[in-house]
């Protein structure tokens, strides 16, 4: 089998058996990057020297990840690599520390090849908001890869790396995974430390993994979980995670199908492919149960208020005093206005304004306060649902990857792309994206499986069985074949 077709376990075996050296493996992927990057623009920073040196020194026979290359979304800090978060305001910034999650992967011997493109500060659903150019979908270069972890998703789909890290505040791992035909996990809130993740919506942010298959996600995910003394919101994983009762089938597994996620406005092929996948589950022994998550329609306004409110504070540190080039002006207020006005992109400014407004005296209760109440109701929707079912199956997004520029002047229509992914962030529950088919334009379609808190292992079990029986995840865009 060729490198490009090997799973992480397969790669590990080739490395362990001595069939291949880690430097060769890294060289292979660096060559793939060299060949395809001009078309895809997945990376903001590629560090061949660093990667090859790491590969050369990787000595960790007991780690399943030893010597395996990975790409890191540019909102995560890696000591020695610039971190821009897709923004001009952080251009040239070198963090002096490494994010806890990334550190754990490095300790396990993973080889970081570079940093991937993202919507500025992870705000967006297409990578079109990156200050460093849009990333192109490897399946069709005229289309977006999704976002905000579009660089990571495109890099994996294009075969430039076997696995990549992303972050997911409202769907930013799952939606690009879906648009690029790969698998992606957004974990339970707090299960992976956020220390070293540039904050967008702190109460919603999760670090996630993107890979071609669920099997490839698992070892990376497992390495990163756990309580971190540097993140007060991180939590210890349960000692005995929930698993499928039967590892070979879905017998005894109850899968819920919420009616609010199958509504008009969703692309017909998307709904069709997801329904087919649900039929597959049934064939594998699952019990399919219609359910309701009644407050779904309020997720978009609640999310955009809460995430923007938190972002308006999180991004206040970029004031021109410590980072980047400061704009000269006569007064302090003008230094702030001009530096931030010039160096933040439009979408970031829009959300800062939105969030500032939502927290302002006289508006707080009507916006922020109300949104928190909605969040509680959405969380309860899920709690109720998970008394009846083990997992919930939905589309990841209403459409497949759209054309670059399609939502150009209409941010609201772009926000609607997030409708099926936001609720999991608001409720803090995990969501797994799996490829389940293609539309008429040959763009990948993704399904989302959501579970109760700390049920990632159960979702992985379901995903693995599905991927054992189907081959959607093995499909590759032409450039990666």
């Amino acid at each position, binding site marked *: 089998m060729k490198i490009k077709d090997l799973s992480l376990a397969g790669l590990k075996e080739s490395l362990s058996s001595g069939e291949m050296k880690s430097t060769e493996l890294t060289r292979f992927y660096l060559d793939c990057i060299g060949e395809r990057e001009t078309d895809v623009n997945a990376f903001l920073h590629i560090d061949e020297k660093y990667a090859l040196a790491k590969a050369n020194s990787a000595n960790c026979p007991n780690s399943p990840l030893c010597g395996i290359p990975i790409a890191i979304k540019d909102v995560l800090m890696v000591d020695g690599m610039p971190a821009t*978060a897709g923004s001009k305001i952080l251009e040239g910034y070198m963090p002096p520390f490494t994010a806890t999650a990334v550190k754990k992967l490095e300790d396990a011997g993973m080889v970081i090849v570079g940093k991937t493109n993202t919507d500025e500060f992870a705000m967006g659903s297409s990578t079109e908001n990156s200050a460093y150019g849009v990333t192109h979908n490897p399946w069709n270069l005229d289309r977006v890869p999704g976002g905000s972890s579009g660089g990571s998703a495109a890099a994996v789909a294009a075969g430039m790396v076997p696995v990549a890290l992303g972050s997911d505040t409202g769907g930013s791992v799952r939606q690009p995974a879906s648009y690029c035909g790969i698998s992606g996990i957004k974990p339970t809130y707090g299960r992976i430390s956020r220390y070293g993740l540039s904050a967008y919506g702190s109460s919603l942010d999760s670090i996630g993994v993107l890979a071609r298959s669920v099997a490839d996600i698992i070892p990376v995910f497992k390495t990163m979980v756990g309580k971190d003394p*540097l993140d007060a919101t991180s939590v210890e994983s349960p000692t005995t995670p929930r698993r499928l009762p039967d590892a070979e089938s879905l017998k005894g597994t109850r899968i819920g199908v919420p009616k609010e996620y199958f509504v008009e406005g969703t692309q017909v092929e998307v709904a069709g492919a997801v329904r087919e996948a649900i039929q597959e589950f049934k064939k594998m022994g699952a019990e399919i149960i219609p359910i309701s998550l009644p407050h779904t329609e309020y997720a978009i306004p609640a999310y955009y208020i809460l995430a923007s409110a938190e972002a308006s504070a999180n991004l206040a*540190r970029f004031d021109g*005093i410590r980072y980047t080039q400061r704009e000269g002006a006569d007064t302090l207020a003008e230094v702030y206005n001009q530096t931030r006005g010039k160096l933040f992109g439009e979408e970031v400014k829009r959300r800062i304004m939105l969030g500032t407004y939502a*927290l302002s005296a006289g508006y707080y209760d009507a916006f922020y306060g109300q949104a928190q109440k909605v969040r509680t109701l959405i969380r309860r929707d899920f709690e109720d649902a998970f008394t009846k079912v083990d997992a919930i199956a939905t589309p990841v997004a209403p459409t497949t990857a759209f054309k670059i520029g399609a939502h150009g002047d209409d941010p609201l229509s772009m926000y609607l792309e997030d409708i099926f992914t936001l609720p999991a962030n608001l409720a803090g529950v995990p969501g797994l994206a799996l490829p389940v088919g293609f539309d008429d334009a040959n763009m990948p379609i993704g399904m989302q499986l959501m579970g109760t808190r700390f049920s990632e292992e159960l979702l992985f079990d379901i995903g693995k069985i599905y991927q054992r029986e189907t081959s959607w995840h093995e499909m590759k865009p032409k450039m990666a074949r």
Partner: protein
Amino acid sequence: MKYEPVIGLEVHVELATESKIFCGCPVVDSVEAEPNIAVCPVCSAMPGTLPVVNERAVEYAMRVGMALGCKIEPVSIFARKNYFYPDLPKGYQISQFEEPLATNGEMLIETEDGEKVIRVLRAHLEEDAGKLTHVEGASLVDLNRAGVPLLEIVSQPDMHSAAEARAYAENLREILRYLGVNSGDMEKGVIRFEANTSVRPVGTEKLGIRTEVKNLNSFRSMEDAINCEIARQSKVLDEGGEVDQVTMGWDEEKGQTYVMRGKEDAHDYRYFPEPDLPPLKVDDAWRKRVRADLPELPRAKFERFLADFKLSEYDAKVLVSDRAIAEYFEETVNNGAKPKAVANWMTGELFALMNQTEVSIDEIKVTPKALAELISLVSEGKINKNTAKEVLGEIFKSGKNPQAIVEKKGLAQVSDTALISGFVSSVINAHPDEVTSYRSGKTGVANWLFGQVMREARGRANPQILREELMKQLDG
């Protein structure tokens, strides 16, 4: 018209923890330390960093809350207070807003009209900002202080004069020092005040419009600023005007308050719960542990000193004003000296020596044991009081044992009747006129003769025996 001032104080207290409130950086001396020496990615707000609460800071805050009789809330919430300033690296300050750690306490103060209770509304934890220094053409940012734990203690508007506010503040400082949570070094800015002042016609209930004077760093400036505001506001009202609700600063040189910003420019801090920190939970076990470690507070100690040691109120007050002094006093008593004598020696000679040399009780070479010994040498008649003063001075310098000094220098009191009798005889023989004058009825001369004999004995004669011998020879 006569006006009654109504005053509330906000006191910002630096908690003397070893490390900052949300990161592991050490807390360094804000005056002495090199700028930006105690700074890390967290307190300089590098992207991706997160706060973690220093439990010691919470415990210090709990101590203060308990000492003020506050309720320690089982759950309190950190919030973000948003504003831009170059000394605030995150662009927001983590503070507690709607749900503070400690609520509803009180403090007893002494006023001209007797004791009075000042209610404490709340005490909440927050982080300090950095420091800006303005130089020619630039402003320099020092983040050493950014993230140092602060406790903001907010009183109710229960004070009615600057003197009352000062009494409250001084009392609070004493308590903080007792609790070991603050050095009380005002000149280092470890305690800062904000005074809210309004006035209303005497006899009326409705509160006047208040002003807030910020950044008051000493008792003196706080008192002056309040008096200035009382006078200014009274004048405005007398002239038929209205007081503006403004935030003010204090110009130390001019001795005047000045307007920093008006109501219309008031900041909208857009507080919201800090998503990076879960609610702060204090369970019963933690509360009990902190309470068990609370020291005896000045007020309780004062009352115990009165009751147990029969001290005068004045002595008791002086001795409890500082925890180290009170502890020194008790240790000296425990070494066998009489409380009243210890109080006299400490408030008299010992404090005088400390003042002259500007050393504190923690630094002096006189141990409580040595002081107790010295006092018993006097009470046993081995040395007299004047000699004892000399010996104390010697111990203060050298730290030597009092007995050893007395022996080495031959300062022991002479109680040999024959010897003293000899001194008396020689003085009487040398001053026949004074003796005649005494015997003719001018008995006061005896005291002068007493002094002469003592001089002859180089001050070491037992005064009682001396007096007996003198009278015997004069009257005999």
